[in-house]
């Protein structure tokens, strides 16, 4: 049964509605006999009280019946247009993220005291990343975000949602306690890709990997990542938080494999250099990402300023309109109607307790 945005779960219960007329029937028991009303004053307030009592009784029965019928607004789908993307934030929760970053003015610091300065003035990487991500989420109200932490394994925190408050809370929750022991990028990426499966493609998809270290991935994992990203058309952005003395993923690391063929010493030397670099986890991961058939971007950040720039860059990259249907489930209003009934009953009890029951 539907009445323009209003329906009843059990409309047959409305058949009981005529019961609401019961209090209007005058019974002998509900009033006291008095020999003559002629000499009693006509009391307007009293008349009002009598009316209120009957009205409350009618309302209590009517609203109870109505609540039993289960009124509610039916399920609807609303087409929403968002700008931007579905962004899965995949954040490293390992202990290395608790290490501090270089202060913003690191260039003016004596290199000998840089380590000391970092220790005293630097901001922990995870904290800087959290602050910026939280600002990033706040600036992009139209995007849908999901949040996943990982260390030894992936930790689902927030599924895809447009309710930013939840995402913010999730990001804040990442600051609890100390980091965990391990960094297992492969498993985390696979889990992140899996969240996109079974979802309708409504706009650009991004996995924003926020970590400070790389990993060597074995061949089955690489295969799953490659195929998963391709099948789900997910772009990968790596926010690389560089620790002091960690490898820089510059032109050298990004270079394609040397074209040197053959057994000449130079060629062997070039290949060896290339593969020696491969042993560095970050470089290995970067090269694997570059080999992926999907969009891949690397943002390196040494200090909070670089990080802010990188986050802004991600924001610029993803600004396409995005259409999606939001399903608004059926909302049951019977609780409110029951509350009205309960209120009426309570008032009726008060009314009844005020009633004169006998002349004695």
């Amino acid at each position, binding site marked *: 049964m539907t009445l323009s945005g209003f329906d009843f779960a059990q409309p047959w219960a409305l058949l009981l509605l005529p019961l609401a007329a019961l209090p209007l029937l005058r019974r002998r028991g509900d009033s006291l006999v008095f020999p003559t009303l002629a000499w009693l004053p006509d009391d307007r307030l009293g008349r009002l009280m009598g009316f209120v009592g009957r009205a409350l009784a009618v309302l209590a029965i009517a609203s109870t019946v109505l609540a039993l019928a289960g009124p509610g607004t039916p399920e609807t789908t609303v087409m929403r247009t968002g700008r931007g993307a579905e962004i899965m934030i995949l954040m490293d929760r390992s202990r290395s993220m608790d290490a501090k970053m270089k202060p913003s003015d690191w260039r003016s610091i004596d290199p000998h005291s840089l380590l000391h300065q970092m220790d005293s003035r630097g901001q922990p990487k995870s904290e800087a990343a959290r602050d910026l991500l939280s600002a990033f989420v706040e600036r992009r109200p139209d995007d849908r975000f999901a949040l996943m932490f990982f260390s030894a394994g992936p930790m689902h925190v927030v599924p895809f949602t447009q309710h930013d408050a939840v995402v913010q809370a999730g990001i804040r929750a990442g600051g609890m306690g100390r980091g965990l022991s391990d960094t297992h990028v492969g498993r985390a990426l696979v889990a992140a890709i899996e969240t996109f499966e079974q979802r309708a493609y409504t706009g650009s998809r991004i996995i924003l990997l926020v970590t400070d270290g790389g990993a060597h991935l074995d061949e089955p994992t690489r295969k799953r990542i490659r195929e998963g990203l391709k099948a789900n058309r997910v772009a990968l952005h790596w926010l690389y938080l560089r620790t002091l003395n960690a490898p820089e993923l510059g032109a050298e690391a990004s270079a394609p494999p040397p074209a040197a063929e053959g057994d000449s010493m130079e060629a062997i030397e070039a290949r060896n250099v290339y593969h020696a670099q491969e042993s560095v986890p970050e470089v290995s991961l970067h090269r694997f990402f570059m080999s992926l058939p999907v969009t891949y971007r690397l943002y390196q950040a040494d200090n909070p300023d670089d990080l802010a720039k990188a986050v802004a860059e991600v924001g610029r990259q993803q600004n396409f309109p995005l259409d999606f249907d939001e399903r608004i489930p059926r909302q049951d209003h019977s609780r409110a109607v029951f509350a009205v009934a309960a209120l009426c009953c309570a008032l009726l009890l008060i009314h009844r307790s005020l009633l*004169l029951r006998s002349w004695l």
Partner: protein
Amino acid sequence: MTHVDTVQEFHYRLPQRSASARPGAHPGSSLGSGQEFVSHMSLYDRPDPRRLDLRASLRSTTGDWLVRVNRQRVGVTVQALVDVSASMDFGAQRRKLDLAADFVESLAHSAFRVGDALGLRAFDHAERIDLTVPATLSRGLAGVMADSLRRCDTAPGGIEGLEDVVQQMGGRESLVFIVSDFHWPLDRLGVVLDLLAHAFVVPVVLWDRAETEPPRSDAIAALRDAETAARRTLLLRPRLRSQWRDAVATRRGELDALFTAHDVRPFWMTGHFDADAMSDYFLEAAA
């Protein structure tokens, strides 16, 4: 059924003479054996040598033998007219009808003591023939009358019932009690009192305490009129209570004024029947 353990009696004497032939206790208009001297008559006119007054005969200028003639005290007929309408079925502790029955029982005993005949007539919207007891001197009727009143079913009534009863009465009764709460329009009551002008009328105004005195606690009172079944809801509060009391006082004043205009003094009976108060009432009336 509540019976009064010991039936209270009251003493009554009519303040006026009654025309009745039967010897009794009230001042009468018939001559006979009494204490009250009227005049002397000739022995030939009234051949009663027991009452020959020698001293008066000697003083007589006509030379007749004079006989003292006395007024005989008489027994009268008493009628109790009892309202058994629905409003009499009301009472917080005891119904007004029970009080009326108490009164009739007491009256029956008192009337028997002084040798008066007592009749009972009840009415609601018309005379209730089933409750009528013709005026008799029988002693055993007290309980019968009281019980029949206590057991009777009430019905909505009004002044029409009283009018009906008064018109049916023979005009030979000397003392008439009207037991009612007088919850009816007063303009027709005057005519009824005029019809009863030959008798000594005692209106027994029977009210319950719950009627005259509003409940002390503040409350919502949903009330239904006993006679008309009309409804009214009152919110009892100090202002309303004073209005209630004022209304009762006004009604009392109206009744008083009407009865005084007909040279009748009402007997107010609220809550219980006090036989001594009734005795006092007659003492004051006879004084």
